[in-house]
């Protein structure tokens, strides 16, 4: 039911995706699997620009009608952009979690952390296991 996990992205075990932009920055969001579990997303609390985030620590919040879920930073660094389009249309995360539903862009402080993340095949297996 969920969309396939793109092979050019990396994944966390909290169901975030991260895209290495190749310029020291990473764009991240939550996976299609995550939006599927959350269902109707009605609010996204974006991080403030300039906020220092730490890999695996809370960086944003996604709320469905019935639940509040933390979004954890896929990498450590400084938030340099947030997807303000989600303020008016949070449902974009449901519709297009991997592209238009991106949440923030982080300037990495420790690029080696990318190595802690799963590739698509490992994430596929991780999802299958947790079922």
């Amino acid at each position, binding site marked *: 039911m969920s969309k396939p996990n793109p092979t050019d992205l990396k994944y966390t075990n909290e169901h975030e995706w991260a895209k290495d932009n190749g310029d020291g920055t990473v764009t991240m969001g939550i996976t299609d699997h995550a939006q599927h579990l959350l*269902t*109707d997303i*009605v*609010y996204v*609390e974006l991080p403030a620009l300039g906020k220092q985030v730490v890999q695996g620590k809370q960086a944003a*919040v996604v*709320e469905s*009608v*019935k639940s*509040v879920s933390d979004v954890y930073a896929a990498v450590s660094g400084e938030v340099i952009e947030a997807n303000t389009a989600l303020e008016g249309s949070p449902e974009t995360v449901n519709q297009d979690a991997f592209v238009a539903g991106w949440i923030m862009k982080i300037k990495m402080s420790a690029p080696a952390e990318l190595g802690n993340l799963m590739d698509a095949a490992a994430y596929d297996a991780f999802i299958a296991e947790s079922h």
Partner: protein
Amino acid sequence: MLKTPLYDRHVQLGGTVIDFGGWGMPVQYTNVVEEHRTTREKAGLFDICHMGEFQVTGPDAFAFLQSVVSRNLEGQEVGQMKLSVITNERGGIIDDLTVYLMSPERYMVVTNAGTKDKDFAWFLKAKADKGYANVEIKDVSAETGKLDLQGPLSEIILQPLVKDDLAPLKFYYAMETEIMGKPGIVSRSGYTGEDGFEIYAPWDFIGTVWDKLLELGAPYGLKPIGLGARDTLRLEAGMMLYGHEMNEDITPLQVVYGWVTNLEKPFIGSDAIRHEKEVGLSQKLVGFEMVDRGIARNDYKIFKDGQEIGRVTSGTFCPTINQAVGLGFVPMQFRDVGTEIEIQIRDKMAKARIVKLPFYKREKV
């Protein structure tokens, strides 16, 4: 985990089953927003078998109930449903429940699921304390199945299953009839703010009724609806939920149950409530809508000018009005419609405004 007769059907229908007060109940089948809209626009079917039903019968039934519930039952017509509360000696709400007069000296009382056992114990204790010999109180929850069919198309979907004509049945009235050939009760009432019915049929037959309704209702867009949408629907309609807006330390005057509380007659708790009315209330439940972005949730703090003044009891994003709203308690001086308050959402203060309840009201045809 307790299971209703429909448990396997919920799983089969793809429902996400959660523990709700000890019962395995579907919180959603697809998603809350979709199920909410289906109910408002077409019709939704809810498994409510977990709720409690008591039979109260005998020559003392009226006098007994009159001494326990807050509503005045005098003049109640056969079939009429009266929403009420039962309170402790301090006026605190033990439960909110509905009282139906089914025939002279025979009542049906419908309670919340999580409070059913304490309600029953309370009834038995009150009967003993007050010495009513000629009333029998029977917990028939285990043999009584209940479905709620809610939404504008409910009547047209339900009619073929029911022996009697539904059209003349008024809101807050019930009738004993046959449902698919078996004895049952159909009440025009509900917990969504829409037209609709609460349907009572034997526990071991309710699955057959559920299946038939889903089959007949499919062309009209009828869907099964989980507890998630039940909660957004009731909140949008300004209805309260026991355990959130009500508990044994909260009186009916503090919430929106003044209208079901008759202080002209004595009932357990009435002295305390009358006293509270004389000296003035300490707090009042209000409805608010978010002005800033953000969603208030149960137990978030309410502030006014930097001072903490109360707590949110229910809050969510309501699909039909497309607005984040909530209910919460504030001191009396802040209860007026239009008052600006702030809700602490994580580390931020978000502006909200007290508004008139309900948040949503259906247009009556």
